[in-house]
């Protein structure tokens, strides 16, 4: 069992860490973009067309890239009063059911997400362009699919985390091992 879990845990730890770095940058950029817009509109009286959409683009990627870490660290809000009443074995069985239910949601989401992204290639963003005019070419409008991918990437990460949890749960169910915190874990408090 360890042979499967350990490599997965290792890979996830690095993947999610990379995701968090990007998401961290994204939230900072969001602030700067909105402040820029306030300045352009109020001080210079010439609002920019793109900050609204650009900030949303960053927010979606921030969410998609952070969600797996939040799930892995137990930050997804749930009521655990009931499972606390159960013993180790029945608690693990209940948890197994919850993990499978969540996995079913995620697997369906992966299929639907592909369709969603595919439709996103039809649509141009209303204001976001790749500014190719700086190298003398025509600017290219960004396809909405690039925004749609953010949530899909989040779902892929959630599936991996779910599988990791599932394997650990099974291992614990059929042996006495106990898994403590995952690597990198910090305390999470959700609103």
């Amino acid at each position: 069992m360890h042979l499967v879990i350990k490599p997965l845990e290792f890979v996830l730890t690095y993947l999610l860490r990379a995701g968090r770095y990007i998401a961290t940058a994204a939230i900072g950029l969001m602030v700067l973009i909105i402040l820029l817009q306030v300045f352009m509109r109020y001080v210079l009286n010439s609002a920019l067309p793109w900050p609204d959409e650009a900030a949303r683009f960053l927010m979606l990627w921030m969410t998609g890239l952070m969600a797996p870490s939040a799930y892995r660290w137990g930050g997804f809000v749930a009521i655990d009063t009931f499972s606390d009443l159960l013993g180790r074995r029945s608690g693990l069985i209940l948890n197994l059911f919850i993990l499978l239910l969540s996995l079913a949601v995620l697997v369906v989401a992966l299929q639907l997400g592909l369709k969603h992204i595919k439709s996103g290639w039809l649509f141009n963003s209303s204001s976001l362009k790749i500014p190719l005019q700086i190298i003398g070419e025509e600017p290219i409008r960004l396809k909405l699919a690039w925004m749609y991918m953010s949530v899909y990437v989040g779902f892929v990460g959630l599936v991996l985390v779910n599988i990791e949890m599932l394997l650990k749960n099974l291992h614990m169910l059929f042996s006495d091992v106990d898994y403590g915190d995952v690597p990198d874990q910090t305390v999470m408090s959700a609103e």
Partner: protein
Amino acid sequence: MLVWFLPLFLVFILIGTPIFFAMLASPGILMWVTDTTRDWNLLYRNVYNGMDSFPLMAIPFFMLAGELMNRGGITMRLVAFSQALMGHLRGGLAQVNILSSILFAGLSGSAVADTSALGSMLIPAMEKEGYSRRFAAAITAASSVIGPIIPPSGIMIIYAFVMGESVAALFLGGIVPGILVGVGLMLAVRLLADKYELPAAHKVELNPEPLSFVEYWLSFLLVRLNLTALIYAFAPVTEETPGTTKLLYAGAALVGSHVAALLMRRAVSPEFRSVCKRAALPLQTPVLILGGILGGVFTPTEAAAVAVAYAFLISFFVLRSLTLKALPSVLMRAAITSSTVLLLVGAAIAFKVIVALSHLPENMAEFVLGLTSNPLLLLFLINLVLFIVGMFLDAGPAIIILGPILAPIFIDLGIHPIHFAIIMSVNLTVGLATPPMGLVLFVASAVSGEKVQSIARTILPFLLVEIIVIFMITYIPAISLAVPSFFGFVEW
């Protein structure tokens, strides 16, 4: 048939399924059973579309502002300021806890931020002074629900977004109710002082650190400017008043403010003065946020970003309490908590699909209206329902799910939309501090190390106070509507 999604959903969350998954699994299963899986597309698309919204951006921004204020020592200064004002009373630190929550509420938009920031500082301090730990945790939890009632408020932004109301009107509407909750709690502490064997009154020693040169003059200036604005607001100025006369008034106000500041300076000790000065910069945040929104400089969503910038600027450049090295972890924490909230909003928007398809709202409205058509009685019933919902569900998701169902019913009955919004927001916010599913209780427990159950028992009298306030808000519309109508945001 579709209506079975609701019991299924309840079972899922009660056994401990993460709410995000429960909100997708229960409608998904019902669609599968009723052979309408083409609507799965809708669920997925709504998760995405629910999050892809500009006003929601305020959520990560307020989280970030809260994190910055904790790291930058801004929270600490507010507590010191509260202590200078109320620390000498019987049950002083309990009163300080409540006052700090009121002040902090003007800076932050979330109750959880309030609990963790103030709790980690005040609970140990209260214990040292002889308060029981569960009392300290309970008063922290009870008072931190003021956070999202007094503006800015994440919950009200969500309400305004879902229901298409004016955010500014909601923000203004929350000011008086928030202060009422605070005053109610303070009275309760006073009345219960014997029962809880609170420490006797004693003199508070203030040991403020000296102010830096920059901060000294900045607060010197800010105090006078705020006073000037306050005095000028009472000047008989109309649109037709000539510019020179206006300038004259402003000049007089400036002089008046300086004189007032000098008089106040005489009246208090140097330590007290210093503590107040150290709070001047942080307390400028609510002035900046509300002033900027009302003055047309930025929208409420943008105000959240401005709050971040302000918190960063003062803690980095003026207070020098924040280092660049600490910044990534601050950003990271804000990003990760907001990602879970945003996912919940997305799932709740998807959940709304099945709520609509099952015709639950119409049926429920019919049922409720069948009970009685007396609006006052209906409001009582609805408060009960909201309170029970709030016991099990977070305020944000509850608003997203129930707002579109309930608000139209009451608006039709003649309740002002902003009034109803405030009733709903305050009621569900108080739910954050009620068992069994009270996020604020959980955080208070995590911060204090006290068991959730024992905090939940101790908090009961304070919850009672909050329930009384909810009913005052419900039956006295002026509490919610006077301020927004004064600023012209509500016709009432």
